[in-house]
């Protein structure tokens, strides 16, 4: 029981990372991408290959995984992002399938017994879940703060403008294609990092775990929490992982088939779109003059404390 709770914590961390990436693409810029499983797969494989075959440390493989996933995102983004959004989702759906196809063709079994990640001599083993939870959630926190900063930067504002109205954004001098590609590449890179963590935890990679279902789960996470709201996305990751481990938690594995969970994910997408398209928590709203970036928030807190004294 407690074991499954810890598993949920780990996987919701991995999915929260992926969802932060998807949120950058779908929530901030309003592009529908369906290949987060593909980026996730690339990240996992990069870490697996670097650690197992070249004996390079996990920490070095992390940026390489991000770069590799980002590069693939760039390759697919350049031809498709210039077009209307509808084509993007088909192209990305195809890409996700093809990445998995290629991985299966190279080696259907995948890679096993990958060396463990270690930090200052401490080895992160799958048995000790607590340490892993801390590791993954530290990274979720880092990327949460980074993306919160991003959302209020020039890049983030340009991305939001594109989401609201592409033509209006363009006529205001925003280079739509450039910002769309940046957003897509950033989102893809985070997907790659999430893949690295998945490898570090399970120590195996197999092509069968990067199906279209993963992409839909990530999308579901973003939609459920609230598109364009980083806090909500993390909440969404918890709920989605809770649903997908529901049978193991309650011991109903024999009664409820795994397809039921996936049907629930589909249902969530439809129901949320009809009744609450802004997600559970809604979009992150702020009034003019509210502290936006991390620095401004710190200053505001300091000011308030100063006032009390």
């Amino acid at each position, binding site marked *: 029981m407690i074991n499954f709770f810890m598993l949920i914590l780990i996987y919701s961390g991995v999915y929260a990372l992926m969802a932060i990436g998807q949120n950058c693409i779908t929530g901030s810029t309003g592009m529908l991408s369906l290949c987060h499983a593909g980026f996730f797969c690339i990240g996992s494989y990069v870490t697996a290959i670097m650690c197992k075959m070249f004996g390079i440390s996990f920490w070095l493989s992390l940026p390489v995984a991000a770069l590799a996933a980002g590069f693939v995102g760039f390759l697919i983004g350049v031809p498709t992002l210039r077009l209307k959004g509808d*084509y993007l989702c088909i192209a990305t759906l195809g890409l996700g399938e*093809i990445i998995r196809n290629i991985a*299966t063709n190279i080696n259907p079994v995948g890679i096993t017994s990958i060396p463990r990640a270690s930090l200052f001599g401490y080895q992160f083993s799958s048995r000790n879940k607590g340490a892993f939870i801390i590791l993954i959630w530290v990274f979720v926190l880092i990327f949460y703060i980074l993306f919160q900063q991003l959302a209020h930067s020039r890049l983030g504002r340009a991305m939001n403008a594109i989401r609201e109205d592409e033509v209006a954004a363009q006529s205001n001098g925003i280079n739509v294609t450039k910002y769309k590609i940046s957003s897509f590449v950033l989102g893809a890179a985070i997907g790659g990092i999430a893949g690295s963590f998945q490898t570090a935890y399970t120590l195996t990679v197999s092509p069968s775990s990067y199906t279209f279902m993963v992409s839909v789960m990530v999308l579901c996470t973003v939609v459920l929490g609230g598109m364009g709201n980083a806090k909500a996305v993390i909440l969404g990751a918890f709920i989605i992982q809770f649903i997908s481990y529901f049978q193991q938690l309650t011991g109903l594995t024999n009664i409820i088939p795994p397809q039921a969970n996936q049907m629930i994910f589909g249902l969530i997408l439809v129901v949320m*779109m009809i009744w609450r398209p802004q997600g559970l928590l809604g979009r992150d709203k702020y009034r003019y003059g509210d502290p936006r970036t991390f620095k401004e928030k710190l200053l505001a807190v300091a000011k308030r404390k100063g006032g009390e004294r």
Partner: protein
Amino acid sequence: MATLTLYIQYIVNGLTLGAIYSLIALGYTMVYGILKFINFAHGDILMVGAFIGLVVYQALLGTSASPVWMVAAFFIAMIVSMVLCALLGMFIERVAYKPLRNANRLAPLLSAIGVSFILSNGAAWIFGTQSRRFPYPFDNTPITFFGISITPHQILMLVVSISMMLLLAFFVNKTKMGKAMRATSLDQPTSALMGINVNRVISLTFAIGSALAAVGGILAAFDFRVYPSMGTMTGLKAFVAAVIGGIGSIPGAMIGGILLGILEAVGAPLLHIPNGLKDTVAFAVLIIVLLLRPEGILGKNEREKV
């Protein structure tokens, strides 16, 4: 000479495959023409159609195995599957897309992905994930002339899909409802003002598209077997076909489907692409078309107005 007949053989194979892509692509293109959105669940309706066809066919067959009854049972199964899929398509439109008609552009797409997921996993729940063979309704010994062999079921595929397309062309161009459909796809508010019941036209579009997808699914099942995720790849390729022809254009979808089928059947052996990566061809074609001529062969290059 030998290679020439070989390539003609590939083209024949591509033609039959392409006819199926055309049938499925018609559903995408008709919906896109009217609602301007990609119906993601279309591929899964195809899968549902194939499963209904298989179940009805096997039930009808029972113990009797007279050749005439087998063919009759096949066509009855096909019609039952068409009707049920048409109803399913209308139901999905009514429940999952209609409330979102005025929402932002992403909403119906996300909803469609949800529907697609519900359908494919529902089928996996009911039928299991293993693939089933769709038995041929008649003897499938290939007929050979001039070194080119064609199987009877390939002939069946071609005959059924071409007659369906002719029927659709007649319906869209010659009947009153077809005229209403064309008007709606040109300009929805104006056609509503002219007394066209737009909701009914949209419902009908989904019904026709889904019925054609059911036929496509059953015919595709001969080649690809029947399994819950069969809709994803076949649907994706049919969409590529619709884009090649020019999405929104009905003759475009027919031409695009056949072109894609031939490209796939000829391109894979020509470029020595291994079997496992054959699906990549369609995807590469999509990217090339989007780069060179995003409006497709027959599509109109519409300028976006503010």
